[in-house]
């Protein structure tokens, strides 16, 4: 890696920090714009509507202070890597997020790899059979998965595979109380993973398949593909060595976008399948108006987006020699 590349990455990271700073402020106001506050929610749950009790709670959380002062506290803590404590569990937000992060990454990561590999594969098959029945079948299937709402798909999958067939567990990440270890635990988690990962991945599989198909068909008309054929190459070699590599470039861009959403993008799936990940954490925090926790999740998610954008650009440079970094 050249010194220029390192400088470039450094520059991008500094810019990324600025972006994060702006996002943090924006998030802060966005959350306050929602009606209600944590004190009201907690008081409501306790069955008390006593003004005094509310007042005490607000004082305890520092919510009685003026807004600009709260923002100042939040930001100054944040730059010291302190995201505060949750109102409810009284736990450090950072610890809570880190506790839930592996589950989410496992789910979204699996869905990501699955959709990318499957989508490109299906797209290539469709493109190689352009205008034959198999192409039409794939296109129709892709359109169906593209248009069907995630949660409905998830519910149907649970009905079919868990309720009727009984093949796969319907919710959770591990069998409760089984206390598996080693290989057994791995299999157990894998079984629990199948349905949510499929549900989450299907949409993007459809997107990649459509994109890969279009891109392959377009690229197969390029002059250099004709050059490759004129060399006397087998069609399979032309497809994989010449067409596919070039056709993948737009897919990489899209994959970068999806990768950035890996943390925040699974709220629905995690909720339906009771997957103990960040999405569900965020969902709960939202209802409890747990400002600190919400802000924490938002912040980590946006940091991920910034990082994955940078990673995508770097990967793009590797796959396409025409792109130069330091510009």
């Amino acid at each position, binding site marked *: 890696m050249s010194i220029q590349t390192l400088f470039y990455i450094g520059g991008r990271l500094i810019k990324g920090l600025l972006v994060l700073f702006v996002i943090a402020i924006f998030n802060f106001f966005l959350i306050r714009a929602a009606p209600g506050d944590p004190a009201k929610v907690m008081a409501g749950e306790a069955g008390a509507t006593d003004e005094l009790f509310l007042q005490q709670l607000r004082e305890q959380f520092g919510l009685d202070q003026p807004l600009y002062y709260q923002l100042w506290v939040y930001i100054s803590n944040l730059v010291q890597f302190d995201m505060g404590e949750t109102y409810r569990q009284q736990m450090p937000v950072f610890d809570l997020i880190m506790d839930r992060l592996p589950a989410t990454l496992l789910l979204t990561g699996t869905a990501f790899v699955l959709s990318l590999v499957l989508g490109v594969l299906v797209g290539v098959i469709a493109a190689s059979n352009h205008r034959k029945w198999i192409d039409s079948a794939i296109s129709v299937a892709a359109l169906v998965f593209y248009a069907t709402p995630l949660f409905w798909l998830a519910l149907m999958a649970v009905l079919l595979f868990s309720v009727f067939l009984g093949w796969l567990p319907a919710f959770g990440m591990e069998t409760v109380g089984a206390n598996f270890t080693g290989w057994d635990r791995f299999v157990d988690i894998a079984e629990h993973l199948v349905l949510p990962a499929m549900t989450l991945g299907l949409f993007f599989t459809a997107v990649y398949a459509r994109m890969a198909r279009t891109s392959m068909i377009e690229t197969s008309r390029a002059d*250099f593909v004709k*050059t*490759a054929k004129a060399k006397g190459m087998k069609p399979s*070699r032309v497809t994989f060595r010449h067409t596919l590599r070039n056709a993948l470039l737009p897919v990489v861009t899209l994959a970068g976008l999806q990768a950035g959403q890996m943390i925040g993008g699974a709220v629905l799936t995690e909720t339906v399948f009771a997957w103990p990940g960040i999405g569900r954490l965020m969902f709960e925090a939202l209802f409890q108006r747990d400002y600190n926790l919400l802000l924490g999740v938002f912040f980590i998610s946006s940091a991920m987006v910034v990082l994955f954008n940078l990673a995508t650009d770097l990967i793009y440079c590797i796959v396409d020699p*025409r792109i130069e970094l330091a510009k």
Partner: protein
Amino acid sequence: MKPLLKVEDLSIRLPEGADRPYAVQNLSYALNPGEILCVVGESGSGKSMTANAIMGLLPKAIQAERGAITFDGHDLVSLEERRARKMRGNRISMIFQEPMTALNPLMRIEDQIGEVFLIHSDMSKQQRQARTLELLKDVGLPDPEKAMKVYPHQLSGGQRQRVMIAMALALEPSILIADEPTTALDVTTQAQILHLIKELQRKHGTAVMFITHDFGVVAEIADRVVVMQYGKMVEIGDAQQVLNDPQHDYTKKLIAAVPPLVAPEREVQDRSKQRPALSVKSLCKTYVSPGSWFKPGRTVHAARDVNFDLYRGETLGLVGESGSGKSTVSRCIVRLLESDSGEILLDGDAIQDLDNKALAPYRKKIQMVFQDPYASLNPRKTVGRIIADGPIAQGVPVAEAMQRAKELLALVELPETALDRYPHEFSGGQRQRVGIARALAHNPQVLVADEAISALDVSVQAQILELIDTLKKKLNLAVLFVVHDLRVAAQVCDRIIVMKHGQIVEAGETKAVFEDPQHDYTRNLIESIPGADWRSGHQPQPAVGKIA
């Protein structure tokens, strides 16, 4: 002599709905060992289709219906794909028109050439590399060691075409098919590539089938010539015979449409007392690609201290190769680009710094005809609207503007019925007429034609040139003719300006410049024109038929 390749009674059917049933019909000709056979024709004549049939590269929807292509005892039309692949790139290879897109952008040159050996031989990696390096030296690439490791985008068009040639000749094929290999190149690069093909052809005794639309190129390299029209062969013969004594009417027309490389005698007018319609003074335009903290920006001088005057009633040619800045200058003049410094005086008024509102009345006085008639007309508007929109924007009532559009169509010799039709219903030449009518809708004094004919077939070119010339006289226009084709420049321009790297290197009366060029660059340009000796006035000209 026993022919190497024989095309016999070949007919290739086009799919339903094409403009004619056959791409190629009852075609028969032979390619002899060690000769260069030029296949000439205008676009759509079926010349490339034949080449693709020989290579087995026809699109799936289009297949040879009848006939045979015999090579080495095999019929290439009926040969099974697996065995045809063994020939392709090995015994018969091909190079294409567009060097910019013909190479895989994601593969190093070394791997792209090496692939040919990988497919057809069992050479080791070292052997492949050594052979590739040898090939790159053979085709005259500067610094071949470095060229091995680069990607296509790091090479110029001419260099890429050299790589393509190296690739095609890698296994010393018996036949090289070259499909318009120099059409996309500048004239000096074209001369080099033609020279290279000829040299390698002699060295290896390869038979070359050279497809082109340019009779100049034919004159430069052909041993024999096949002339095609609408998928049929209309003439075949020795190059000298076809070029100088064509038999078929179509060949005669094509050759007559090639402008001879002699500037005709022109009346030199004293214009010193006249005020120029357009005056360009010290025009400068620099492109700076932004640098960063670590990398200096790149500066390209597209125009450096450009000065010229243009008078009404004359045609001034702006010639040069790509990157010479001629298009930049023309775009600065019509204010499609902002110049950095200098003055642009239109009818005596400086327009270079006017804002959009102040500029509006001047826009009428200077109009442009663009290069690509397929891309420069809005496909969703009728021809009438395309022509009338400019005046309407300037405040002319719609009915009046449409009436004027009708008159303009008559002026550019298009039927009145064209008014309500859309651009896609017209041929390239007709569209360019619409483009001219659109430019004339404002009654301009200055017409800037930016490569206005270079996308057209040669016979259509002649018609458009004639039209522009007629209009110039009729309307007393000042025409700035941006052109890379020196043959055209010699015929239509009263004066020419030669540009190189953003600077004017030579300017003068056309005849004087062509007969006695002062600058080395001009001389080089003129010498590079393919077939410069042919039709230079030393030989009898063929009878000129009326161009259809």
